């Protein structure tokens, strides 16, 4: 766990301690509401989902906590709970909901929980200040506007913190990480925000029944996202498995596709590619050797780098034709098709993903699964000294940084 995550968890922890202390001292106002919303948060933590890119999310918990923060009235009675109480109830709910996961031995992402708590805390504090003014209580449209702005602020704060942590962990650029985070979280975030506002408002009309009623669409959304994330995982597993067919038939050294894809991903992140582009790069890197299946016999050692350019081009074409058959991977097919094109400094030249795969492929063909540092250095030298401008120097430099980090990590 790195420094950013630790800082986050400490901040959240201190806040929780302060909130619980204060709430215990002052006493809970509106016990029934507190219990109901706390139960909703616990339920939401229990049913957390994982979005693509290994992002943990608990939409129902967040919606419930935000609704509790934005609550003005329940039925006809005002709800005067303080921001500290909101934080305390949310924290308790989260812990209760996380206990079954811990008991089952499932890893809990504490920094994700801390992030969610902090977002709710921001909204609770700000809204508490603003709700004190009578203007909001008088005009519904003002209250609505304030709620909407605060929810957006919470969403942004959450995204920024998540992007900071992710950029540090994955060595991605912050700007790219932030735009990726926003893109992935936007639909679910919109549903969560709207549901939170809805519950807060509907509680005035329907009382606590609003909680049960308005969670329904969020539940459907969450289920759909879970299945979506599941099938993304399956998709990657399938591509990974089927790309190993070249290895089983002896065309390619065992583990080659997997190593090339991991290398290409690291280089792509180093060069600041966005997540959708990284996904295409990963698929292309896994499947870049598929064209070799059409050859009558294996290339010795599977090293395409030792084969004539015309043959390399043919293999690339064959591979691209196979991938295009899927009908949904045309971008990937194009990357694979142009992977054998030399860089030559021409403008625009082959796409960045193709250049990355070419370099990663060349590197792995020379180094393989060997972890010897000297061999990696020698391979990089050979790529750098390439006089016919086969490889993009920028890509080779990024590759050397990635390889350097790997060998120093061992």
């Amino acid at each position, binding site marked *: 766990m790195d420094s950013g995550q630790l800082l986050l968890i400490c901040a959240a922890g201190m806040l929780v301690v302060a909130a619980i202390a204060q709430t215990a001292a002052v006493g809970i106002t509106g016990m029934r509401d507190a219990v109901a919303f706390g139960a909703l948060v616990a339920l939401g933590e229990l049913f957390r989902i994982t979005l693509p890119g290994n992002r943990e999310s608990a939409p129902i918990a967040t919606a419930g906590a935000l609704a509790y923060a934005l609550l003005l009235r329940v039925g006809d009675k005002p709800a005067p709970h303080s921001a500290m109480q909101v934080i305390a109830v949310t924290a308790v709910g989260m812990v209760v909901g996380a206990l079954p996961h811990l008991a089952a031995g499932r890893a809990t992402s504490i920094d994700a929980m801390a992030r969610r708590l902090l977002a709710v805390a921001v909204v609770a504090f700000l809204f508490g200040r603003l709700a004190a003014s009578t203007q909001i209580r008088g005009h519904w449209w003002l209250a609505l506007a304030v709620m909407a702005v605060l929810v957006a602020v919470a969403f942004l704060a959450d995204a920024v913190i998540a992007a900071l942590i992710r950029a540090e962990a994955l060595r991605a650029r912050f700007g790219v990480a932030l735009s990726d985070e926003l893109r992935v979280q936007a639909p679910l975030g919109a549903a969560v925000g709207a549901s939170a506002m809805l519950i807060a408002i509907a509680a005035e009309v329907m009382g606590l029944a609003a909680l049960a009623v308005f969670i329904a669409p969020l539940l459907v959304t969450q289920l759909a996202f879970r299945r979506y994330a599941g099938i993304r995982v399956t998709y990657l597993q399938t591509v990974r*498995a089927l790309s190993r067919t070249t290895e089983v038939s002896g065309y390619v050294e065992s583990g080659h596709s997997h190593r090339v894809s991991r290398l290409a991903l690291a280089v792509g992140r180093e060069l600041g590619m966005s997540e959708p582009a990284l996904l295409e790069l990963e698929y292309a890197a896994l499947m870049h050797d598929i064209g070799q299946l059409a050859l009558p016999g294996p290339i010795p050692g599977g090293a395409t780098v030792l084969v004539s350019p015309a043959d390399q081009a043919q293999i690339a074409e064959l591979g691209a034709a196979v991938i295009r058959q899927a009908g949904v991977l045309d971008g990937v097919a194009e990357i694979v098709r142009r992977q054998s094109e030399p860089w030559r400094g021409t403008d625009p030249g082959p796409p960045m993903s193709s250049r990355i795969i070419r370099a990663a492929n060349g590197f792995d063909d020379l180094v393989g699964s060997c972890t010897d540092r000297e061999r990696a250095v020698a391979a990089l030298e050979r790529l750098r000294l390439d006089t016919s401008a086969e490889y993009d120097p920028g890509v080779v430099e990024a590759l050397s940084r990635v390889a350097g980090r790997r060998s120093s990590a061992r």
Partner: protein
Amino acid sequence: MPRLSWAARIYVGAVVAAGGLVIPLGPFGGIAWPTLVVLAALYLICEASPVPISPRKHTWSAGSPVILAAVVLLGPVGAAIVGATAAFNTRRDLHVVRRMFNGAMWALAAYCAASAYIAAGGHAGVPTSTSFPAIIVPFAVAAIALGLVNYVLVITVLWLTPAEGPSAIRSGRQVLAAFVPDLGYAIFGLMMAALWRVVGPFSAVLVLVPLYVARWAVAQYVAQQEAHAATMAALCQAVETKDFYTRGHSERVSKASVMIAREIGFRAERVEAIRHAGMLHDIGKLGVPTMVLQKAGALTEEEFAAIQLHPMRGLEIVREIGFLDEALAGIMHHHERVDGKGYPLGLAGDEIPEFARVIGVADAFDSMTSARSYRGARPVEEALAELRKWSGAQFDPVMVDAFVAALSRERWQLPKPVAAPEGQPAPATTQDHDDPTTPLRVVTRGWLQGSSEPSVPLHDQPPNPSRGDRPQGRR
């Protein structure tokens, strides 16, 4: 726009007339006009932004909840007016007659729903906190009435339009399948109406955003699932580049396995799993050296062992794919025989997993009915006769019978003959390990010692049918 029959014209005319009459006749008192304008605009926006819910271009829009909100807030005539705005749908490609029919249909449906609502004890107007929970029953009645009238009107027009005549019943089932979840979405109409008191028209935005996101999420999932299936199909076809004449084999085996599975009555998830198993069953063939696959003469024991390994190799490749579970057993054991003489483990009878028994039948059938380099395709009846002949020894009789029954209903599409690529002679096997009529000939060591069979380097001389070569080994 197809030409309508007389019956259809009369029907459409009647609906349009009825819809048109409902509005001018009704009482206009008590309608909150600003609310009506807002709801009508909202309805138009919803209809203009449908969410695709399946790759077959079906779409969903939040139109029904908006109309139900109008039913509660505006009463019969107001709701009918909101429904009538369907005629002004912003889609460009709608014919005028179709527009008028849509508008009239929704106006009528809304009117009936609102009348049912009032008849069941509801009150038109903004609900107050005292309205709950008494409002729920009349609202449910209204929702059912709306859906019912809509369904009946649509079904009738589908039945009457000649282009869709014979398939109307199936479309009817599809409409019904869409009708039931629509009932579930009806509750959001009530929510919109309930919140109108507090936040006015903004309640619609708040209620609809999570709804749209939910539908969008479902659509994403469906799209990704189809993408996954397409990619798997493409990659399996890549496998078949090794042996030209078996193009499409995996897909056909998959299809045949699904036919058998459905006939036996597998659950939907298992049918899905066997579809994948059929697709991936021969992946392991890649682990067999090409020379062995293309060998013309009898195989040595080592070569035969290499072929026998392909189910295990296949398993190695696909083992890490998460959802396959039972399909893995099908892939690993698809060459077992009921009499126990199969490979790799020699399981017999019921020891063989069910999936494997199904795939075994499908595999053999397709290999017999497709053309090979050394023989043409066999007709379906002959292949079925072979299946029956070996049923009990190689194949499970239950599966064979199920397949025969399925084929009697659905014709089997024989694969088109595959054209050889220009330039190189077509690489092709001369023995098919799937074909039960031509079992692989294995030469044991003793025989080989005395054999005078020349050993020809095979990558130099693949048998080329166009040259009139006959596969070596056949005397």
